[in-house]
């Protein structure tokens, strides 16, 4: 059994490696480790990579002037508390991502996929930088620190951080094919669930005409996270094709339970940080939304839905997807559109 679930770290140069495309694999491939991007096995990679590159943005593009006023004047006490804690949580999540993605990448033996993860890692850095930008603009230095290190005083927060962290450490301590799929799914949950409720909170402020600059930055982060989510979905699905034998009923139910547990925790977290104090949101809405997210995340990687019903976006939350789509927002005809892309990806065929 031990041998069956063995997971090899990818090496450096492997002169005796196989040069055929078929030798490439998500993990345990036998290629030369030369970056051969002319012969790509995973076709989705090239589109994904181009898309991710052209999404490049920096937070300074967004004007935060109104947010400075809003933060002091328009936010209610409950809203400011949630704002701080949600931001704090996102800071934690992105920090964790930049640290953990390289751990996963150590085992990814398909170079093209490995490239994507590197790029994701870089984007997570930009996200961290944009939280710094937000804090820098709206807070004084002491407030800033109390937000970043909030977990030192907030035991509920700390517990949650440790739980998420634990899932990642399991893999570091004992890397094998089973713990690998578990860490992939843990990452997928982090991208597809934990981030999303945070985003949703900021969009809700935006829809109440508060902290629109933050919402704009979050929209950009969200767009990247959508991409990251699809990257890990693809990795999971390819991995599944290549290691069918791993996906026993038992493993699948472990994975489903992971998602379920994450949803339950997320709902509790929602109660803790949003509760019934925030205009535009209430506990039922949060519950419905998280259950719905849990279900689509599970089904899109081939697992069974986790919660009965909850297969469609709840009507009370349909505003979230409207607010999250960058492309749907037309600034004034003569405003600065955030839609414009970077011309570095433009194919020069003149």
């Amino acid at each position, binding site marked *: 059994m031990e041998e069956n679930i063995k997971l090899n770290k990818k090496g450096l140069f492997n002169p005796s490696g196989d040069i055929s495309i078929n030798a490439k694999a998500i993990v345990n491939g036998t290629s030369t480790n030369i970056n051969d991007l002319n012969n790509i096995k995973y076709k989705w990679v090239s589109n994904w990579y181009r898309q991710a590159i052209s999404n490049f943005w920096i937070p300074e593009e967004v004007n935060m002037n109104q947010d400075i006023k809003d933060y002091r004047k328009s936010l209610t006490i409950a809203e400011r508390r949630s704002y701080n804690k949600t931001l704090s949580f996102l800071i934690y999540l992105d920090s964790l991502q930049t640290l953990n993605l390289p751990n996963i990448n150590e085992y990814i033996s398909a170079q093209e996929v490995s490239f994507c993860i590197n790029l994701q890692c870089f984007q997570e850095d930009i996200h961290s930088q944009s939280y710094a930008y937000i804090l820098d603009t709206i807070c004084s230095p002491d407030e800033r620190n109390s937000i970043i290190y909030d977990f030192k005083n907030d035991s509920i927060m700390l517990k949650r951080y440790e739980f998420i962290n634990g899932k990642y450490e399991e893999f570091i301590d004992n890397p094998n094919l089973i713990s690998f799929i578990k860490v992939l799914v843990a990452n997928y949950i982090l991208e597809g669930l934990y981030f999303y409720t945070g985003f949703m909170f900021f969009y809700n402020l935006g829809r109440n005409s508060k902290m629109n600059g933050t919402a704009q930055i979050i929209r950009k982060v969200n767009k990247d996270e959508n991409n990251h989510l699809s990257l890990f979905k693809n990795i999971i699905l390819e991995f599944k094709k290549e290691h069918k034998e791993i996906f026993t009923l038992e493993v699948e139910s472990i994975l489903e339970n992971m998602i379920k547990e994450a949803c339950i925790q997320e709902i509790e977290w929602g109660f803790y940080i949003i509760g019934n104090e925030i205009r535009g949101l209430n506990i039922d809405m949060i519950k419905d939304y998280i259950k719905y997210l849990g279900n689509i995340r599970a089904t899109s990687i081939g697992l069974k839905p986790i919660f009965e019903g909850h297969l469609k976006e709840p009507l009370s939350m349909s505003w979230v997807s409207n607010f999250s789509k960058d492309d749907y927002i037309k600034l*004034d*005809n003569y405003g600065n*559109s955030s839609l414009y892309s970077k011309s570095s990806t*433009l194919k020069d065929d003149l």
Partner: protein
Amino acid sequence: MNKKIIKRDGREEEFKDSKIVSAIEKSFISQNSILSDEESSKILNLIHEAIDLKEKITVEDIQDEVEKALMSLNFYDIAKAYILYRNSRTQIREYRDFLVKEFNKYDLRLLSKNIEKEYPTKEYSLLNLANKYKSFSLNSIDDEEKMNILIKSALELVSVEAPKWDLIAGRIELFRYHLNLKTRNKELNVTNFYSKIKYLIDNDYYGSYLLEKYNEEEINKIERMIIKSRDKLLSYSSFKVLKEECLIKDKNGNYFETPQEMFMAIAMHLAMNEKDKLFYVKRFYDVLSKFEFVFALPILKNARRKNAQLSNCFIDIMDDSIVSIFESISNLAKTYDLTGGMGIYLGKLRSTSYLNKNSEENVGILKWLKIINDVVLAINKKGGFNGGVTCYLDIWHIDMLDFLEIRKYLNLNKHYKYIIYPAICVPDYFWKLARDNINAMWSLMDPHEIYLKKNYHLEDFYGVEWENRYLDCVHDDRIIKKDVPIKEIIRLIVKNAFETGTPFCFNRDIANKENPNKHKGMIYSSNLSLEIMQNVSPKNFINEEVMKFNGEEVLIKKSEPSNYPTSVLGSICLMNFDYSNDSKLEDVISIGIRALDNCIDLTSCFNLNSLLTLKKYRSLGISVNGYQDVLANENIKFDSEEQLIFGNKLFEKINYFTLKASNALAIEKGSYPYFKGSDFDNGNYFINRDYLSEKRAKLKDSIKNKGLRNGYLLAFSSSRFTSILSSNSESILPLLSKFYFEEEANKMIPRVSKFITNENNLYYSDAFDISQDYIIKTAQMIYKHIDQGVSLNLYINNNYSMRQILDLYIKAYEAGIKSIHFLRLKEATYE
């Protein structure tokens, strides 16, 4: 038997069998069965048995008895349907009651019933509104805040499936507005329209001319022409722009006018010099308040006020002297402050830095651009409409390369942000080279140096004449040149367009060849959004003199008037009347043109030069709105040949009726002063357009003999303001997307066509999804029927290559398109 029934609100009504039967019938129909007469009398008998002994019964009692009767006659399915229906009604009633009880100051009872009556379908149920409201209404304090939340809730329900929530939100907002206005009228002792006008004149809001031209009796008559129910046409978005931009308010933000009163006061202003005043007041009011023909923002904002500035779309030339540059800057400041938009041509400016290599900073014309930009930044019109300044430079100007990059996304090393828009003026020759010989070299030169060495201004020519002189300069070794491969310039254009949507593109040769007034000058550049194309010329300053005025010394600045164009604008909103009815279309156009033409004589202007120009050309800019809605209504796809045929007929008619109306006005009131020698006069206008039918020949003769009132007529602007106000899709363009948000002053305003239905949904194409060839072909089709330009955007995604983007520009040139505004980009999202 005179049985009384007690209704839910306590009122009593006579008991009628027919009402019960019709309710039961509905339940039968919902179960696909039919209620026979026999069955119906059986049920009625049972009900009567139960209630006949009582003298008064409640609605609920009767409904209970209906249920029982249905059950005892074994109509189980019908009974179930009846009960369910009854339940849902009860639920809706509960929600309505809930909403009504929420408010103290506002009584929503009647409003909510009316909304239910007018929007009976499920997607507009008040239940949805109440639910949304509840999630927002957390510890709301006062009625005003609750009202805001209610409106916000309605607005958030707007979707492609339920677009009319926008109208419902508008209804609620207007309900509040009217109620508050009533209180205010009392405070101000305003009892009728006449006393309101008087109050507004006394307090310096309205111009006193209104009472000089109309007496009390006439105003009372006019008041009776106001049709309040037209408020129902106002969506939340349209009322919002009226409130923010047009309705008069005092310094504390209190309003005076109802929207209908405002429309009427505008109509009174525009009709005040007509012989048959009241007739035209009514006509102008009708086209405006039904949004058949909507006047541009400055008219809606300023007509009826003192010193009403009614025109917009100003275009200036900055001539190559310090006096002229700063005269332009001063004009820009005034124009931008008052109208929010402007086009400036910079092609005459010399590039000092190129000749003087020492100056590193602010290279060449960039230093002037920076001053223009700083003026715009300093005035900072935030949230207004049409805000912006477009600067034009000829593509052979030596500073072109820097100019192209001013809006570059991450111009980090320059640390300066341009908010003005660059536009390039391109001759045919450039596009021909780009198409046939992309590796050729292009010479960038300094206009001042050309003048010094050649004694002519290259930019003063167009077409073949320009081409010959350009080549002459290129071959003249005395002139310093920066030679750049065409390919490099294209690369810069395409890259910047991809990243920033700019430069805009103005095809100068095409615009000048088609200029109907070329006998009086030439077109150097267009306006802010590239649809107005009229003669422009720099001003010549003569001197400054001291004169005596009332014994005091005054300074008089003298200059020769030049062409400094401005236009009076309005839009035909196709969806708000029966556009397929020719006589209606003609009527709307002729009334619209008459109103706009009156504006030319009524407008005041902060810039006398442009006022003189306006009176010489009597320029209009008539646009359309709602073309995409019309297409969907006709079940025609934007990207189809059918559309081109349909549009060709429609726009031909619009052109015909426009010229006919302007001709009729000329007969009544005289031609525009520069008519003689124009293409309208010599007939070239008709020949160039193959307008050869008998009907056209007649019109051509009539124009030749009796003239034309307006020297420029049709220009299709992007009309965002009139589009939002009339709820018609913007101009002739397809929708950006069936549903999108517009971000305005921290608020996300949903936009979706109010005419979209399940049936025509398919015919609303997203601009990004259709082949751009069809946008170009559509513009080409339209260009035949207009005399100025179309504010035309192209829509691409990030799968386009440089070559594909270049091809769009070349195709547009080949199709005779005079300008391209934004190149809009949609990022393909990765699935």
